């Protein structure tokens, strides 16, 4: 068996960035799971412990990058799955911009939450 099964057109920009973000997410998601379930335990989570982590600049920046790449990877995956299933024309444009708006809302909300822990009051 040598067929290649994918919702993505190989070589395209959406395919390329899906692969780049995948490689990043493999490492950071594993770190995230390990840190918050095995080093710390989910049941022990408090605002103070979350804040202590987020007040470290490198951790804060990593989590912001994690949020942006995870959002892109997830939403780009959904968009490509829908195109692969036949989405086209005006519906495709409408879905694209709905996903863009949803992504922006998610990232802004995530950054606001991270800022609440880090003690940053910008947005």
């Amino acid at each position, binding site marked *: *068996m*040598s*067929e*290649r*099964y*994918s*919702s993505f*057109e*190989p070589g395209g920009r959406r395919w390329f960035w899906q*692969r780049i973000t*995948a*490689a990043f*997410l*493999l490492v950071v*998601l*594993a770190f995230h*799971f390990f840190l918050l*379930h*095995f080093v710390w*335990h*989910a*049941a022990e*989570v*408090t*605002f*103070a412990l*979350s*804040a202590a982590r987020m007040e470290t600049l490198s951790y804060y920046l990593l989590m912001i990058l994690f*949020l942006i790449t*995870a*959002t892109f990877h*997830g*939403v780009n*995956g*959904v968009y490509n*799955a829908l195109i692969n*299933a036949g989405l086209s024309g005006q519906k495709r444009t409408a879905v694209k911009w709905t996903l863009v708006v*949803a992504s922006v809302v*998610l990232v802004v*909300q*995530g950054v*606001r*939450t991270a800022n*609440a*822990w880090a003690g940053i009051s910008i947005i």
Partner: protein
Amino acid sequence: MSQSFNRGLVEDFGRWREFSAGMWAWVFHKFTGWVLVGYLFTHIAVLSTALSGPAAYTNTITTLEGLLVVRVLEVGLLAVAVFHMLNGSRLLLVDLGVGLERQDVSFYASLILTGAIVVASVPTFMAGVSL
């Protein structure tokens, strides 16, 4: 160089008995992807209680983590995430031209490794919760 393959109507699950390992991998990867993107939005929504203050956030997380159903769902999330990561690693390699001819073996290995990691993680994920 790998070629894109016309799968036909893989969404027609009436044909599931004819699915090859690569097609199952594609179906599972898509399903776990939908679950994970849905969870991402839910995750940020729950964490956003931090915007209402320390007490609201701590109470929300503590209450959720005290529920058995949440712990079971977390184990399910781990299974979904680990499979998506392992199968995704496989896809990255296939796109680089590695293992295209051994997709069935690497897919089964992804499933077995996912099962092993999830089973080994159950005690940690269930620690401290009562019925």
